[in-house]
């Protein structure tokens, strides 16, 4: 069973109860700044502005470094995020996001810069106690193709409110194909957020740091 299949099973399980997940669009007229360090194989920074609640525009920088043969990609891109569908329930919310963009990528094996495009999607479901999200991100150029699949399942020990600190325990599974990492990288994370600030940190099963920071304003 690959990560996507595991994820769908996980989301189905989570739906029985319900997410506080990073979304590419936070709110209308809001700016989102994100930075992630992913266990040495992936580092990403993004900035998006949302003119509408269903649309955001911006750009990012992604560095992928293989823990197999040390090949490296440095991808700089412009991207458009779109909220395809939202379900607002009494005490839950579910979303489907899609995005696409283009930019330039540095390829270490050939020491060249290539045109690169990217596309992806995210499905998420959350309440104030449980959440699940599945995200897939494809980066393609003539020199490479990498797909990053990320599954997150989160559990909050208590229900937070607007002015209180939200605490989440998150299990993350990630696969990065195309010679970057073999197998699924599992992490356990502690996520804290209050109002517009979000920080999470934890470790992979190999003891490597996995961390993320996000701010919405």
């Amino acid at each position, binding site marked *: 069973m690959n990560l996507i299949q595991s994820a769908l099973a996980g989301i189905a399980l989570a739906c029985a109860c319900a997410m506080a997940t990073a979304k590419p669009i936070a*709110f209308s007229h809001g700016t989102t700044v994100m930075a992630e360090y992913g266990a040495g194989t992936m580092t990403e920074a993004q900035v998006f502005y949302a003119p509408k609640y269903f649309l955001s525009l911006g750009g990012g920088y992604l560095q992928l470094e293989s823990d197999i043969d040390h090949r490296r990609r440095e991808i700089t891109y412009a991207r458009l995020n779109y909220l395809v569908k939202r379900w607002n329930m009494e005490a839950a919310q579910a979303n489907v996001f899609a995005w696409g963009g283009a930019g330039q990528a540095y390829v270490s094996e050939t020491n060249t810069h290539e045109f690169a495009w990217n596309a992806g999607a995210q499905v998420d479901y*959350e309440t104030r106690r449980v959440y699940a999200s599945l995200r897939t991100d494809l980066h393609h150029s003539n020199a490479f193709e990498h797909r990053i699949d990320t599954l997150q399942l989160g559990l909050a020990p208590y229900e937070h409110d607007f002015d209180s600190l939200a605490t989440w325990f998150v299990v993350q599974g990630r696969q990065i194909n195309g010679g970057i990492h073999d197998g699924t990288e599992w992490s356990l994370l502690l996520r804290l*957020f209050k109002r517009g600030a979000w920080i999470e940190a934890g470790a992979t099963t190999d003891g490597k740091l996995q961390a993320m920071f996000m701010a919405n304003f």
Partner: protein
Amino acid sequence: MKKTILVLAALLATPTFADTIEMKVYGLVCGFCAQGIDKTLRKNPATADVLVSLEHQLVAVTTREGQDIPDVELTRALTDSGYDVKGITRTQRSLAEIRGSIKEAKR
């Protein structure tokens, strides 16, 4: 006659709206949702204060003295923020009273 006119004028001058507007909103699950709604509603010049309770799926707005925000405008603000308004009621409860009853309900 003069007295009657003054009383009538005073009655007509009394605002027909309440000071607090309470909205039942679906989809409120995280602080970011609340932040977006709070930011949007505070942009309205008639808004005095805003309260968002995720627990009660409640968004409450107090308006400045002598001002009101029509239901259609509130619904549009919430819908444009990505949420669903399920009901709007106008009350005389202040935001402090609402905060108090939310605290009380938690005990």
